[in-house]
């Protein structure tokens, strides 16, 4: 991984299973809420997207992601950890490009915090995409 938030290429099932073990030692966690974003084969001007190439302002992305984690943790007192991983480089249609995991004591705050994290990622992470056909 390029930093704790960015990984080169798709977020593979192996990486997902590794990420899911984070916080396993925290026995106060009763809920794990996960969002996975995948590249969709959208159609544009009669052509289908086959892959997306992601780029980022990596130094700023790390700083902003730190801030998102801090904000979510302070807004949801039951949240115990927030994990954000976004792809850089080439990700094919059908592959995952974003992973968000929130662990919490109970389900309610966890699921809401996961959604909130997703919206902040889209709004604040300096990441750009180039659609390939």
């Amino acid at each position, binding site marked *: 991984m390029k930093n704790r938030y960015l990984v080169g290429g798709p977020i593979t099932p192996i990486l997902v299973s590794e990420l899911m073990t984070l916080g396993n030692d925290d026995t106060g966690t009763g809920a794990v809420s996960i969002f996975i974003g995948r590249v969709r084969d959208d159609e544009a001007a009669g052509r289908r997207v086959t892959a997306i190439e992601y*780029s980022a*302002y990596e130094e700023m992305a790390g700083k902003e992601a730190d801030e998102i984690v801090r904000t979510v943790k302070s807004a949801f007192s039951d949240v115990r950890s927030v994990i954000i991983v976004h792809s850089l480089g080439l990700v094919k249609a059908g592959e995952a490009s974003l992973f968000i995991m929130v662990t919490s004591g109970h389900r309610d705050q966890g699921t809401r915090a996961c959604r909130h994290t997703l919206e902040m990622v*889209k709004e604040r*992470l*300096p990441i750009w995409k180039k659609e390939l056909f």
Partner: protein
Amino acid sequence: MDISVTVLYFGAAEATTGRKEEEFLAGDTASLRRQLITRYPDLARLPFRMALNRTLLKEESVLQKSDIIAILPPFQGG
């Protein structure tokens, strides 16, 4: 006084300028913005924000030596 600063281009701004980074002489971000549009008129059609030293700029700011300004088109992560 004009200061030498580094400008980084991302996303569509990189495609528009054909560059990843470049040096400019400018005293503040407003002056830098004007220079950017003069040099790359197509940038005016691209909505972009600026970050000063990795922090999104909320208002125009005076520039210091070695400042890094990033040109940020709308984010597209997710």
